[in-house]
């Protein structure tokens, strides 16, 4: 049998080529890019079917769905890039319900003129992240916008997952007396990104903490099924996430500055940039709230997992109709940890 001749005589030039309008035009150039880049990198049975959708069976019970758009600048940073970030971000949003993530969908908005070599690196990083996490990217979409109307590449990912029976995790379930835990050091991602900002060049050894947390969540849920709230403190950081919980659950929080894990390099960078690590973004950490009697067991479980080695109990939920998050400072005073005002930084995830 003779081999079917490829439709495309010349392969996509991933060395010197650039994205042009035809890559989003719906014609042959787009089909070739999808085949030679996306389908090859993400390689799975659903993409191989070549449909505009992915068909799969789901287990009976409760499903969760989450979506996340990624517009980070710069696209590549110490410890990761927009590709793996787009996979981790959505997997984490799904996992924070206690769910086991099953499938991802990905939408790309590419800017005309963006180097195909960079796109290839990003897509391959995304594929590797999905493979490592065991969550396939089963369907996707590509659009191209004119030069000046995008910023290289924007990626939106959507994920679905299955919630095990008996698990009830939601931001509105915190009760006075509950313990507040964090899975590790805060602020790593935000500082890694900042170190590369064009007008803010400083050298740091900090790497982004971007990671998929569903493995950690699975072991936490298995050991302490009574976990009430889970959330990954991305944009807005720890301070903002605690305020979200306080508002949803109509409670207050009291946390202790001395117990919050922060790397020395991160606090030094925050110090001279005038930032507060409480509001700096994370991409591989989670906050958990559980009944006080389960706190030690949860902490031990988290610490036994590589992604929770630096976990700590940082405070407790208190009754407060004003829903303030308060912090006992290391200095001995008390202050409000307010919602983040404006934004600490443009576009970090």
């Amino acid at each position, binding site marked *: 049998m003779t081999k079917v001749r490829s439709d495309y005589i010349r392969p996509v030039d991933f060395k010197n080529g650039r994205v042009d309008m035809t890559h989003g035009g719906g014609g042959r150039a787009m089909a070739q890019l999808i085949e030679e880049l996306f389908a090859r990198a993400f390689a799975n049975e659903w993409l191989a079917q070549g449909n505009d959708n992915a068909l799969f069976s789901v287990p009976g019970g409760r499903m969760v769905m989450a979506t996340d758009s990624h517009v980070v600048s710069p696209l590549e940073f110490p410890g990761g890039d927009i590709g793996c970030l787009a996979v981790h971000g959505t997997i984490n949003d799904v996992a924070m319900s206690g769910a086991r993530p099953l499938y991802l969908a990905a939408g790309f908005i590419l800017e005309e003129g963006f180097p195909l070599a960079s796109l290839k690196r990003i897509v391959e990083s995304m594929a590797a992240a999905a493979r490592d996490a065991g969550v396939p990217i089963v369907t996707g979409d590509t659009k191209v916008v004119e030069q000046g109307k995008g910023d290289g590449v924007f990626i939106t990912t959507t994920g679905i997952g299955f919630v095990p029976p008996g698990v009830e995790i939601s931001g509105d379930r915190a009760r*006075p*007396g509950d313990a507040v835990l964090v899975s590790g050091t805060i602020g790593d991602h935000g500082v890694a990104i900042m170190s590369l900002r064009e*007008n*803010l060049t400083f050298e740091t050894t900090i790497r982004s903490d971007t990671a998929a947390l569903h493995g950690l969540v699975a072991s936490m849920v298995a050991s302490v099924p009574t976990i009430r709230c889970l959330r990954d403190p991305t944009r807005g950081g720890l301070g903002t996430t605690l305020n979200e919980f306080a508002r949803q659950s109509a409670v*207050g929080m*009291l946390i202790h500055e001395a117990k919050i894990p922060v790397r*020395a390099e991160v*606090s*030094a960078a925050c*110090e001279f940039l005038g930032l507060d690590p409480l509001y700096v973004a994370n991409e591989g950490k989670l906050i958990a709230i559980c009944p006080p009697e389960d706190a030690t067991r949860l902490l031990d479980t988290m610490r036994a997992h590589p992604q929770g080695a630096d976990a700590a109990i940082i405070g*407790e*939920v*208190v*009754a*407060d109709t*004003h829903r*303030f998050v*308060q912090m006992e*400072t*290391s*200095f*001995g*005073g*008390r*202050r*409000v940890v*307010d919602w983040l*005002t*404006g934004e600490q930084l443009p576009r970090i995830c």
Partner: protein
Amino acid sequence: MKYIEEFRDGELARRIATRIRAEAHPERSYNLMEFCGGHTHAISRYGIKDLLPGNVNMIHGPGCPVCVLPIGRIDNAIELATHHSAIVCTYADTMRVPASNGLSLMKAKARGADIRMVYSAADALRIAQDNPTREVVFFAIGFETTTPPTAIIIRQAQALGLTNFTVFCNHVLTPAAITHILESPEVRELGIVPLDGFIGPAHVSTVIGSQPYEYFAEEYQRPVVIAGFEPLDVMQAILMLVRQLNDGRAEVENEFTRAVTRQGNEKAKSLVAEVFELRPSFEWRGLGEVPYSALRIKPEYAEFDAERRFGITYRSVPDNKACECGAILRGVKKPVDCKLFGTVCTPENPMGSCMVSSEGACAAHYSYGRFKDIEVRAA
């Protein structure tokens, strides 16, 4: 962090607090103004008030560079970007200061004005080099701390022969503002603002030294203790002020000896003197026109003066009628005395300038301290 954590030690703080409590005479009060926003921020962020006895009161001063910028100057900066199509570069917080017609630099940017946030004056110069066909204006604000870098970039622009770079100078002077407060009728005649002593600026004093404060310590009989911005610096300065007041002394003392000398930084001062000269008068938000309280660019450097190049005319714009920023900046009122505080005026939608910068009295109280105004029950 070496050399920082040492100044945030809670145990030491409690020891100083015990001394303050032991030495402060219960029958009198100690009303101390921290001039600088940096101190205001430290007091709120570290909860220093919790450590002080009830008769030691901290009054927030006007030393927040963003807070004292009058609306008219922000309007001018917006005009530079919109009418003269210049790239206007400025420091972060300035972006959010409310201007006329519901605008701010940030809102003007959203409407298409080319306004860019920079972290240092040198970045503005680089933007001018990178955009040779555009006019680039550095909207320079701040006290004596940020003035020397502005002087440096003006000299560099001259050395580089840049023709597209100018500075819109709004640098203001600390001693003039303190004198103005002490001369105000509220302090001098009416005694509305009891003002017993000052915590003197940290970074400003590294440039100007401790000597400029000697005049008003002597003239107005108010002690001044120059202090660093770390919380232990502030605690120590409060103790030193309590001791001076107990002894009936009115001297300039320096808690911040690790950075401040009597003479200050001679090199920085001479650089500033070479490029800038005194303005006869300048409007401060909250304080009004203050004589000889600000700097302008000398005629020798006229080609780098945005006010000259673009023929900027200043128009004074009154604050919102209900806004108490003026009284708050003079120490006459507290943030909670303002009807707008926390209602229509919040850090997200600041009406007055004190709500803009984290160093502003209102923003600091809103962000860190407002829970103290209302009852909060612990579990």
